[in-house]
């Protein structure tokens, strides 16, 4: 079934550790995004990519980095995790940037202790 695959589904991570959240899409979408979802807040954009080879910062990029080596993969790395990064992380893709529906994965629930 076409869509977005995220891994891991959930993770408990000690503060200070490095972690990469994986995201793969098979829809050949140009644009990809990473969001975090916290209780009481709407989805907030961390980083995005218009197309393979390019990335940009969203609303809350501090403490996170991304890469887009190819069309399908868009990993999100936490270089040194902190408790405030405890959240549910969603990867999404769209055919193009802007005015195109986002398709989401099922998320990674991350707890930083």
């Amino acid at each position, binding site marked *: 079934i076409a869509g977005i695959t995220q891994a891991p589904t959930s993770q408990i991570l000690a503060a200070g550790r490095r972690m990469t959240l994986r995201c793969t899409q098979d829809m050949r979408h140009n644009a990809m995004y990473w969001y975090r979802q916290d209780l009481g807040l709407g989805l907030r*954009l961390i980083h995005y990519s218009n197309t393979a080879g390019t990335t940009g910062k969203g609303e809350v990029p501090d403490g996170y980095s991304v890469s887009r080596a190819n069309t399908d993969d868009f990993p999100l790395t936490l270089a040194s995790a902190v408790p405030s990064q405890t959240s549910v992380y*969603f990867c999404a893709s769209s055919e193009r940037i802007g*005015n195109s529906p986002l398709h989401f994965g099922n998320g990674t629930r991350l707890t930083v202790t």
Partner: protein
Amino acid sequence: GESVGLHLPTLSVQEGDNSIINCAYSNSASDYFIWYKQESGKGPQFIIDIRSNMDKRQGQRVTVLLNKTVKHLSLQIAATQPGDSAVYFCAENIGENSGTYKYIFGTGTRLKVLA
């Protein structure tokens, strides 16, 4: 409507009745809107979208209405079913030609379908 603080507004509807979920969007320059459904433990699922040059769009059992004058969006679900129970939220995007990544998401309304 949109939530304030940690508690989502809840709409309870009898099975078989119609549901109307509302969203007030923030930016008069927004020209593209999406409704999402999110079930517990899952990612948001696209339901329907509408561009600002329309005021109504229909899908299967769902209708989206857009009132640009008061910056209001609504989602109507006909003959609500137990499987419709979820959190629903709207998203707005600014600028067809701006190339902006920026989608603004609401915090959502919880729909509970009563048997």
